[in-house]
């Protein structure tokens, strides 16, 4: 039987093109995901484990337990099997150069060369505590060169620098800075000057969460108690045995582990974050495969309809249903296997390219053969499953149809499955809305999925009926459009099938756009709420210099800059605080609530701790002595009180001006524009900080950048992946048109003979394709937008008030894109149709 299946394939190789391409694209996507995941995970692991590469045993000090002896490294060295050990230190410092002031991490270099985990690219190893090595990336970003001198300052405990705050200190080995008051035996108190003597090229970006990294000798960390000791054991000794020994003899609070185990732990910590990304990729891969399956099912339905008489004949001369079905499914499996193999091969390449673009190919290409086998199986399975239902229907063709002259009229009768689908869509949609309103994510997801499946199964007849409705409208638009309409109506079921995949692709894109826009608006509103002011620059005493103010006011990303009033004053219950007075203009620009109540009562914004100190509830009225006079304030908690990095109560500027206290202008606050380039803003602030060492720079700029940056990246990634789905859908439309062109060869020829121009014939097909694509797009948007809103509502839940924002521009571009898709998919079929010679229509 295979020979017959192949005979058909050989006879019409082009006919299988759409099926082949759909499965190639679908599997390529999955394979690329698998390779990207494996490669980037391996890369992450290598990066995470790099500092441990040269060690056999790692001993950690549990920061919760009592401090061990400062030289506890010696206890590790004392073990007979340990041939070398080094204490590992890390400190966070402000790196100060001529141009910038920013947070840097300083790590210790092992004195023992065999325990150093990187080699030098240039220069030499540091010999004294005043010499450091930097990696190439730090060198570049900080604008340093070999031989440069840099100052390293203690970080102020209360105020985070602009770059480190919010990014989260991911370094596993950061020393506890609070206790590290000692600055070594050089430089002024709290400051050391060091020289860059060596440069290393790590080849990757270490996962430390800071932009600048320096490596110094152990002498730099004099007085610090090491948090970790790395050791090597003598040749032939077992690290496991040494670990067991050390754990038995070391004092409590110190725990040993093999370096391999420690590396695994470190890698897991980082890989955990990327696993979510893997999952997202996998979901989109499966969506692409679903789209491929829909195109394949559609292509089979259309093709088998053409072969109806042949199949009936096969049945007549004795083929059993099972044989016919087997023939079709075997054929599908062959094409599916071929496509999956091609797709997987292409996917491996794409995945590697993707991993290189994200800089995660530290250890080269990683492929899990089993995953690729799984991808190929998924591809073949998708093809076979997609072909199964059409094959079943085809095999049920009664043999007597071989003897009949005319084909039965096309169209989609309403079957029970459509009613079930409609019910599922209705129930799913309702439950999803409820789930979204209540904010129960799993229920919303489950119901949403049920609804989507229901919709997909019920949409085909709906689309078919829409085609029928559109035809008279087209008829009124003139000859070419009328012909296109007539063609659509001739087999509305077929047109509906190809539109359906577009509904899936474009619907998902609409949903994602809506969810992303609404999510972004919600997060923006929430961030505005939590971080009303983006930039704060303060001096501890006196006022900010006019120069500094001018520099900040000139930063283009800021829409509102104000030199706010400050006063060092005593407030009952709060002690001596810096009281801040801001103008109503600034409050308005920052989106924070007004500082004057409806009844004229002034408002004082305090931090949570201060509220507790006052012993009142937020919103309560309290009489407070200010500048010798007592005034009644409505005390509330709010983010304004912590803008400067320290808790500083905020009142209206007029309150401060009239209270009789001494007023300085000790701070400059700035509110960024919504579309501000936050990277550039951070860069600016680094420079401001470098220009005047007495300034403390803070604000929420980088928090907002990080959060919205991640969101934007995810949305763009998802959109890119959904484009794959649209690509597959386009293929489906092109395939349907191509087949109908083949079918209509005689008719096209007749039309040409009757006087239709080539352009007219091409136009007919283009209009047909555009109508199909447009209907797909409109339904997609109609379904996608509510889905997106429900989805994001369920995700946000009650963590923040939902701000609904509809991406009008994005949604408007979807039908436009659909028209383009229609035109593109009509190009090849139209060329083919236009080649038909007019005489062919008249020949017998």
């Amino acid at each position, binding site marked *: 039987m295979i020979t*017959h299946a192949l005979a058909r394939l*050989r006879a019409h190789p082009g006919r299988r093109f759409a099926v082949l391409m759909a499965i190639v694209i679908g599997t390529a996507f999955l394979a690329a995901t698998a390779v990207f995941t494996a490669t980037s995970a391996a890369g992450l692991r290598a990066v995470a484990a790099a500092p441990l590469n040269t060690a056999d045993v790692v001993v950690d000090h549990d920061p919760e337990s009592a401090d061990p002896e400062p030289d506890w490294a010696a206890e590790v060295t004392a073990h007979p099997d340990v041939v070398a050990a080094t204490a590992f230190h890390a400190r966070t410092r402000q790196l100060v150069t001529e141009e910038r002031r920013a947070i840097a991490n300083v790590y210790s270099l092992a004195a023992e060369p065999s325990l150093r985990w990187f080699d030098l690219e240039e220069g030499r190893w540091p010999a004294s505590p005043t010499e450091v090595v930097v990696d190439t990336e730090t060198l570049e970003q900080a604008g340093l060169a070999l031989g440069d001198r840099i100052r390293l300052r203690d970080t102020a405990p209360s105020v985070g620098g602009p770059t480190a705050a919010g990014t989260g200190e991911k370094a596993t080995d950061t020393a506890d800075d609070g206790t590290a008051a000692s600055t070594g035996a050089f430089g002024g108190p709290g400051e050391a000057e060091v020289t860059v003597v060596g440069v290393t090229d790590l080849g990757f970006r270490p996962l430390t969460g800071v932009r600048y990294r320096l490596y110094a000798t152990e002498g730099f960390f004099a007085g610090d108690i090491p948090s970790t000791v790395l050791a090597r054991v003598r040749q032939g000794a077992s690290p496991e045995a040494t670990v067991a020994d050390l754990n038995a003899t070391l004092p409590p609070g110190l725990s040993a582990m093999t370096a391999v185990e420690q590396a695994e732990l470190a890698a897991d910590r980082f890989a955990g974050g990327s696993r979510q990304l893997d999952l997202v990729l996998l979901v989109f891969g499966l969506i692409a495969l679903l789209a491929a399956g829909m195109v394949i099912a559609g292509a089979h339905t259309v093709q088998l309809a053409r072969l109806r008489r042949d199949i009936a*004949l096969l049945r007549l*001369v*004795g*083929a059993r249903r099972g044989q016919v079905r087997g023939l079709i499914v075997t054929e599908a499996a062959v094409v599916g296997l071929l496509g999956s193999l091609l797709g997987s091969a292409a996917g491996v390449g794409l995945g590697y390219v993707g991993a290189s673009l994200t800089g995660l190919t530290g250890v080269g290409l990683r492929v899990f053969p089993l995953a690729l086998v799984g991808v190929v199986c998924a591809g073949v399975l998708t093809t076979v499953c997609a072909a199964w239902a059409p094959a079943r229907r085809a095999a049920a063709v009664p043999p*007597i149809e071989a003897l009949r002259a005319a084909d039965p009229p096309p169209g989609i009768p309403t079957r029970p499955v459509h009613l079930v689908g409609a019910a599922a869509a209705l129930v799913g949609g309702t439950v999803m809305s409820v789930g979204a309103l209540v904010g129960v994510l799993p229920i919303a997801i489950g119901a949403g999925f049920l609804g989507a499946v229901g919709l997909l199964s019920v949409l085909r007849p709906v689309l078919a009926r829409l085609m029928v409705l559109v035809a008279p409208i087209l008829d009124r638009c003139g000859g070419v459009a009328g012909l296109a309409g007539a063609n659509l109506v001739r087999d509305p079921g077929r047109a509906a099938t190809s539109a359906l995949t577009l509904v899936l692709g474009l619907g998902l894109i609409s949903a994602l756009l809506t969810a992303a826009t609404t999510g972004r608006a919600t997060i923006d509103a929430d961030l505005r709420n939590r971080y009303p002011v983006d930039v704060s620059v303060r001096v501890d005493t006196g006022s900010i210099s006019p120069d500094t103010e001018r520099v900040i006011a000139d930063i283009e990303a800021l829409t509102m800059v104000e030199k706010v009033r400050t006063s060092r004053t005593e407030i009952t219950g709060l002690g001596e605080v810096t009281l801040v007075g801001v103008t109503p203009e600034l409050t308005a620009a920052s989106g924070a609530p007004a500082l004057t109540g409806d009844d004229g009562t002034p408002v004082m914004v305090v931090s949570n701790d201060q509220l507790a100190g006052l012993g009142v509830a937020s919103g309560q009225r309290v009489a407070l002595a200010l500048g010798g006079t007592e005034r009644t304030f409505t005390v509330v908690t709010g983010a304004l009180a912590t803008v400067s990095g320290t808790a500083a109560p905020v009142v209206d500027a007029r309150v401060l001006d009239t209270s009789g206290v001494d007023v300085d202008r000790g701070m400059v606050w700035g509110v960024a524009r919504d579309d501000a380039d936050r990277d550039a803003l951070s860069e600016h602030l680094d420079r401001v900080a470098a220009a005047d060492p007495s300034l403390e720079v803070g604000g929420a700029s980088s928090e907002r950048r990080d959060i919205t940056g991640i969101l934007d990246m995810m949305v763009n990634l998802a959109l890119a992946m959904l484009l794959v789905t649209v690509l597959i859908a386009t293929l489906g439309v092109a395939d349907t048109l191509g087949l109908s062109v083949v079918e209509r060869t005689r008719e096209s020829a007749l039309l040409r003979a009757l006087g239709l121009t080539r352009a007219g014939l091409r136009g007919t097909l283009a209009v047909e394709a555009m109508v199909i694509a447009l209907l797909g797009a409109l339904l997609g948007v109609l379904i996608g937008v509510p889905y997106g809103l429900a989805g994001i509502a369920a995700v946000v839940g009650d963590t923040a008030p939902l701000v609904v924002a509809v991406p009008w521009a994005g949604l408007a571009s979807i039908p436009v894109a659909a028209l383009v898709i229609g035109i593109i998919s009509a190009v090849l079929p139209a060329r083919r149709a236009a080649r038909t010679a007019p005489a062919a229509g008249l020949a017998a």
Partner: protein
Amino acid sequence: MRTPVVRSAPALRTEGLVKRYGEGPTAVTAVAGVDLAFPAGGFTAVMGPSGSGKSTLLHLLAGLERPTSGRVFIEGRDLTGLDDRGLTRLRRDRIGFVFQSFNLLPALTAEQNILLPLRLAGRTPAPGALKTLVTTLGLGERLRHRPSALSGGQRQRVAIARALITEPAVVLADEPTGALDVAAGRELLDHLRTACDELGRTIVMVTHDPLAAARADRVLLLADGALHGVLPRPAPHEILSAMEGAR
């Protein structure tokens, strides 16, 4: 030589065969209770005016349509009791078809088309069987060609070869000469005659051509779905006058 061999058991037999389409007052009776017996090795022509139920009768004989009532026996087996699978197997192994429109699979060569029923059954042709058949039908040179490269007569001979390759109990032919010119038609009837005389096949042929019907051992006349008369070895003019009577 025409020596009608009448054997004890007919190859094909019907009992009170009725086929009615639709229900109630609008129902159309295509076959109105016919009892027929087709002797093994005989060549029977079925004639009748348009709408007399010829084609429906043929479909019923082949098990392609289910009778409203009555039964059809092929070699003593009741078709009406068989399911789709059983019917398919019976058609494959015991019935050969020849159609007006040839109905060859365009993707397969002539040889593949001929061998198709055997392939579907998972059987291999008996040694020499194909060669004998092909030589008899004069198809030797054309086996590697696809149907599109064959003339109408050649296509119909391929169709006959396909019908005969399984050594069926009965060959059902539906207007086999309808799409052929006079010469090719005569040649085709010679082949059918040969199949009957030399290979001992039972042939039932529906036709409206008196010249074609005259080559049969006997002619059954149908009118309004019922048997109107039987003419044993009639001459063409006898058939014509009988047809007039049936109108």
